């Protein structure tokens, strides 16, 4: 069953001279219960915007977002409806994710109170959930500054978890952390999804980590979906030239001294997207049509989705996928 369903979502910001900037330019995405769906893409491509729209922190300028079949209402000044509290978010920066002036316990207790079962002992539930994310219950009386980035991120996860969410949107939850902490937090999130059966949208710019924990990967380019599929398929046989470029650009710590492949140019500015396929200026295989027509997202029989006029041959495995 689709837990969180985004249909043709667009997010715009007011730009210069009053023209709206479409940071997200029409995306369909579905989050399933018990699965980690990853959203990857380069910086500025609209990942956070989509994530925020998904939980209602931003009002999409078009399209619909439904959580468990009901529309996700953008936040207004009042309290968020109880049914939506099962849809939570974890942010990127572990330092600003927690209020520096409130105790850990109080902040996690906010989550407990937001949850569906309000009965029982709040302190005990706080302790439980802290332990669930691998922290001692005793830290509840301490303040955030006493903790490292990885620990803070766990606390933030605990707070979200305390609300008994059925879906979590995690916006680059590990990119501010050290390598070791990245591994442990990523694993924690993946485990939580397995254990609780909730759904997760895992936003990241790091395809190599995502590939290890996601059940499904969506690649975004400049506000649009480029490709979506299972991690290994995507990694081994990308359909979209951008996915391939991304995969090949990742340097690997294997000591082999191989230079990663680059894509020419930089990510374009969403304020003035290229005509036709948004990727065409950087695309090694772009043709005339790519400069004119925006390719639609096509779903192939295996369930992979790609938006390219000339999808790469699925049969010819890309040479990056050796691991």
């Amino acid at each position, binding site marked *: 069953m689709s837990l969180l369903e985004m249909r043709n979502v667009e997010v715009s910001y007011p730009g210069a001279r009053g023209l709206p900037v479409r940071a997200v330019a029409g995306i369909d995405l579905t989050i399933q219960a018990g699965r980690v769906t990853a959203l990857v893409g*380069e*910086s500025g491509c609209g990942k956070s915007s989509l994530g925020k729209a998904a939980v209602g922190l931003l009002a999409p300028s078009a399209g619909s977002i439904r959580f468990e079949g009901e529309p996700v209402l953008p936040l207004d000044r009042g309290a968020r409806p109880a049914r939506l509290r099962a849809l939570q978010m974890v942010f990127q920066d572990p330092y600003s994710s927690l209020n520096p002036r409130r105790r850990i316990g109080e902040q996690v207790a906010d989550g407990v109170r937001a949850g569906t079962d309000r009965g029982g002992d709040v302190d005990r539930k706080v302790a439980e959930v802290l332990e669930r994310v691998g922290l001692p219950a005793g830290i509840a009386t301490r303040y955030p500054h006493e903790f*490292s980035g*990885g*620990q803070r991120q766990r606390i933030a996860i605990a707070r979200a978890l305390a609300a008994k969410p059925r879906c979590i949107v995690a916006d680059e939850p590990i990119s501010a952390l*050290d*390598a*070791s*902490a*990245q*591994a*442990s937090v*990523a*694993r924690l999130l993946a485990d939580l999804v397995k254990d609780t059966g909730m759904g997760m949208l895992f936003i990241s*710019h*790091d*395809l*190599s*980590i995502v*590939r*290890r*924990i996601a059940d499904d990967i969506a690649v975004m380019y400049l506000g649009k979906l480029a490709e979506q599929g299972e991690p290994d398929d995507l990694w081994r046989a990308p359909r979209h030239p951008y996915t391939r*470029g*991304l995969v*090949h*650009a*990742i*340097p*690997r*710590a*294997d*000591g*082999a*001294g*191989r*230079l*990663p*492949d*680059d*894509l*020419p140019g*930089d*990510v374009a500015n969403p304020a003035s997207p290229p005509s036709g396929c948004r990727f065409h200026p*950087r695309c090694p295989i772009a043709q005339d049509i790519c400069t004119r027509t925006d390719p639609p997202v096509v779903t192939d029989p295996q369930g992979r989705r790609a938006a390219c006029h000339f999808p790469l041959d699925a049969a010819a495995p890309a040479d990056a996928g050796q*691991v």
Partner: protein
Amino acid sequence: MSDPLLKISDLSISLPKSDGTRLFAVRELNLTVRRGQIAGLAGESGSGKSLTSMALMGLLPDTARVSGTVALNGRDVLSMSRRETTAVRGRQIAMIFQDPMTALHPMLSIGRQMTEHYRRHFRASQSVANARAEEMLDLVRIPDPRTAMKRSPHEFSGGMRQRIAIAMALCCEPALIIADEPTTALDVTVQAGILRLFERLRQELDLSVLLITHDLGVMSAVADEVSVMYAGRIVESGARADVLTRPRHPYTHGLLGALPDGAAGGGGMQPIPGLPPSLETHPPGCAFHPRCPFSTETCKTTAPPLVRIGPNRRIACTPDPLAERETA
């Protein structure tokens, strides 16, 4: 073999803490950079990488105290007069910073920024300096260098800016380039381009680079030799392939194991237990011992020295638990 271009011996840097005592952020650091080589210095945030580079440039804050020697072409940089250091900076050693968005002056034109140090170091005229700068911009593949010179940094994208920063560093034909996390702020596809640029420049110009990064993947792509720092000390160094495929220090091993690729055996994504050392309190003994699966009683009391364990290869681990696997 000729003398190394840069030889750092027993470099220690301490900074005052708010309680009045001093924090030894870098301890007894030894490192060499050979001509035409890219030497990598890796380590997690706060391990002292940037302080080391600042020490080389003479740009440490006034409150810092430094000991040891840093020999560039045999001359000790640390004991130079202020005048001499100014002459060395930018001329002998150039630096590339992490964030090209902030390392370029937002209010000065590219041309101005690229030529001011050239004119000073070479006492050259503006037109000579301009020609040189255009040449360098061309070298790093900035289209239309002449007009680019007239523009301000904000008119360029992140990748272009980093290229400009590199061109700027190259202007005075420095003997050594220090690149402190030159790609961390960039997207992977752009990062790949910059790494390729480094490689090409090394080949074309016989460049010597001290590359500082926390990303072992980047290390693996371009560095010839890799040194790994932990809590202010170098814990392991050696040729790139050796360190990255057969790490001998438990920390390097753990770090590689935490990466998603899991190159050094295991499935990858295995976090190192425990917490990174706090900035203020270094544990006594080996700084890594609280997190080390192999730590012994001695590790808790004595810091192991960096010892040579092979040609060009050193580790700072007395038990050396991974040695067996090496030989096996």
